């Protein structure tokens, strides 16, 4: 069928929404609650006009004889008022917010040129009693959850767009309360206890759900001349780094930036993966049973423990590549270069949020791509002026193919080829669930299973930036 958008005719199919057609044709429509495959229509930002009536473009399917207007006085008025209303309920502590300059609400407000913030009463209009009421009300509604070492939540910065609710693969989050008191949270506001895949962090438009971090501590150690800061980075994830900082387009630039930030050495994580594969092969050789599960996805381990505990014994007990490599750095590397291991700080820059829940203490910190971006911005580093460098040669992988591992199935494929065994691979919770159900019913059997919680493996990890800025 043909539909009219801004006085031009476009081809559209029945399945497409107006937003889909506009995105395809390059017509810009701002969105907030919209995500791929999710059409909630709750933020009322993506409004368009159809024969004079306002409607949301993200959940309205294309119909013949539609006459869509994407820019009008009414549309921008509604968007402005909606954004203003959102701001009135938003803490607005931009300067100290973890998402400052990467915040979609901030960005939308700038794009829509919202200049007035009229909905919040000014302090001089309030009596002492009312101010107290407001504070009480606020205290009741703000829920801060710092109960785990990977994800921190605060409803103060939440805009109730429900992206986290929709993206969560294990449906941990939902709306609590009603009307203006609505907060996103877990049942009975218990501390978050999930598989920490971090997809909610990746998709949160504001600072409502963020990485839990010790950034100040890391910054201190980076600047400490007595400490040797070592960065571990997987070059296969370069692309996801450029989502956070588009100027980092090459591996040389990345290493240069890491050095500029204050890391003394930057190692290729592929080496850690080699150790991981070696150790895994050893364990498989000593194990006669089938259906062994590779352990490099920390989220998967939590998932199995929570939902399929009978398979906990099938997990091959090997630390994650990051942890293995940190141990190597602190032992053999330190010994060889005569450095006191206590003076080495190993930081892994990863696209994984769940790795923050680490078991081994050799790995000092795990930070996500987003947090690395924050360090760059905090230190005011001009990436365009940074000189490119190579990974440190001191520890480097022998086999170049190892970097395939971050893509789903890479590790299993490599191990299977080397050992001549069967394997199954899966990614995304939906597929993984199906596999475990089949395993439970004994419908399938294989030697090793590689499953990665994030869709597409680590390349789709929860520790990346998702901002369409």
């Amino acid at each position, binding site marked *: 069928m043909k539909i009219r958008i801004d006085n031009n005719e476009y081809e559209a199919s029945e399945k497409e929404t107006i937003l889909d057609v506009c995105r395809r044709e390059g017509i810009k429509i701002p969105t907030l609650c919209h995500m791929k495959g999710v*059409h*909630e*229509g*709750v*933020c*009322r930002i993506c*409004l368009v006009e159809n024969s004079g009536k*306002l409607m949301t473009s993200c*959940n309205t*399917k294309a119909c013949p004889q539609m006459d869509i207007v994407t820019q009008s006085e*009414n549309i921008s*008025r*509604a968007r402005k*008022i*909606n954004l203003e*209303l*959102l701001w*009135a*309920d938003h803490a607005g502590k931009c300067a100290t917010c973890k998402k400052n300059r990467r915040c979609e609400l901030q960005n939308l407000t700038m794009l829509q040129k919202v200049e007035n913030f*009229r*909905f919040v*009463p*000014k302090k001089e*209009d309030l009596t002492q009693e009312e101010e107290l009421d407001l504070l009480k009300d606020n205290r009741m509604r703000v829920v801060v959850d710092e109960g785990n070492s990977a994800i921190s939540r605060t409803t103060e910065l939440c805009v*109730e767009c429900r992206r986290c609710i929709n993206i969560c693969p294990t449906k941990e989050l*939902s*709306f609590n*309360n*009603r*009307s*203006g*008191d*609505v907060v996103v949270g877990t049942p009975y506001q218990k501390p978050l206890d999930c598989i920490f895949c971090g997809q909610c962090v990746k998709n949160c438009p504001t600072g409502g759900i963020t990485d839990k971090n010790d950034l100040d501590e890391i910054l201190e150690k980076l600047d400490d001349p007595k400490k040797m800061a070592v960065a571990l980075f997987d070059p296969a994830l370069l692309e996801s780094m450029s989502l956070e900082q588009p100027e980092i387009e090459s591996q040389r630039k990345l290493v240069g930036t890491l050095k500029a930030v204050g890391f003394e050495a930057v190692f290729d994580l592929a080496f850690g993966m080699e150790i991981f594969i070696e150790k895994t092969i050893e364990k498989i050789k000593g194990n006669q049973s089938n259906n062994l599960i590779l352990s490099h996805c920390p989220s998967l381990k939590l998932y199995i423990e929570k939902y399929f505990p009978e398979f906990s014994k099938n997990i091959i007990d090997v630390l994650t590549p990051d942890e293995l490599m940190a141990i190597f750095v602190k032992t053999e590397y330190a010994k060889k270069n005569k450095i006191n291991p206590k003076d080495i700080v190993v930081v892994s820059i990863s696209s994984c949020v769940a790795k923050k829940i680490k078991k081994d203490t050799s790995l000092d910190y795990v930070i996500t791509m987003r947090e690395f971006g924050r360090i760059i911005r905090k230190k005011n580093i001009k990436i365009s002026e940074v000189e490119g460098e190579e990974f440190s040669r001191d520890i480097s992988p022998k086999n170049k193919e190892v970097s395939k591992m971050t893509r789903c199935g890479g590790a299993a494929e490599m191990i299977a080829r080397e050992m001549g065994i069967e394997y199954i691979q899966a990614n995304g919770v939906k597929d993984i669930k199906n596999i475990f159900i089949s395993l439970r019913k004994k419908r399938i059997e294989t030697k090793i299973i590689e499953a990665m919680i994030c869709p597409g493996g680590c390349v789709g990890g929860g520790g990346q930036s998702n901002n369409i800025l």
Partner: protein
Amino acid sequence: MGKETKIITKNWGKINSQNIEAYIHAGGYEALKKFLFEMTPVSGVEEIKISRLCGRGGAGFSTGTKMESVQKEKSSEKYFICNLDESEPGTYKDRMIVDNDPHLLLEGIIISSLIVGANKAFICINGNYRKQAHILELAIERAREKGFMGEGILDSQYSLEIEIFSGAGAYICGEETALINSIEGHRGEPKARPPFPTQIGLFGKPTLVNNAETICNIPWIILNGGHEYAKIGSEKSPGTKLFILDGAIKNVSVVELPLGTSIRELIETHGGGMAKGKYFWFAQIGGSSGRLILEKDLDEKLEYDREAKIPVGSGAVLVVDRTVDIHEMLLSWTSFFRRESCGKCVPCREGTFRLWEIAKRAKDGKISERDLETIPDILWVLGNATFCPLGKFAAVAFFDAIDNFRKEILKEKNIN
């Protein structure tokens, strides 16, 4: 057919409503028998379409059209929901129906379900109506004993189970998609349409949701024919309607009158005029979400019509006299909607909250220039950009009040 036609209230106060024998003696369940043995579902829908009956919950959508679309859906399972989740402030017509004639409602539910091909019906009742839920439970039991429901109704090939579902009393759950969500066990909040519940409704099956009052008209239509029904009341929307007369009038009551009755007639003839020593100020038609009527509009007719100046809504008529403080009214409306918004979309969640704050300030006489500037903006966005009609309704009364009583609302400010 004169003005005296009583369809819903014909048995009220005359028979012992709890007793199924009395109801049958008064001609009850005759319509069901007629439908079972003399009609087909298709001819049933035809009668209802001829009657031009429209939904009594507020929106006034044609019942026949809705029934036809569910009937036409090809699905092995269909559901019928009786919307008894009445929570509009000042509206209690459905409760009166259950109190006074539960079997009329049941008969309507059974016929409607069979017409659309549903073999499971839910009565979604407001959580606060404990007593009414009990009455219905007993009525269902009696009807089952008599063979009016269950497997093979009156030895025909039709079967129907009726279940009572008690909500938690949320206002939004009167909206049909929210109602469906609530029965499914989800959060009571509206879903995007399309798909309409008539196609994909309860548990993904075609579902017909009708207001209790609408359902009570069905037996009469089946028994007397759609043509007869279409002769009653106004040209645009035939039939009778329960009006709830409330406020500063002599007779506070529920009356059944043909649609098309003027507000003046309602107040003066049926409400007995203003109460002693009270002077008419304005009237609100249709609960908290209704429009405000001044003296000059009293001759407007109440009927379901898209172009009607005064929407009938739920049929509640609240007469307000000069002694009432408009600030109290504002606060009552805004606090109701602030509490009852489901919190799903931005304009309704945040807008109703800010309106409530402004109403509080107005009451304290501290409404500021900034507030006066923001009120039109909030009302406009509520009226034009919300997810479901609740936001639109939340703005109606406030808008009319600001429009008509601006002076009164601001006067307080100058005094203080």
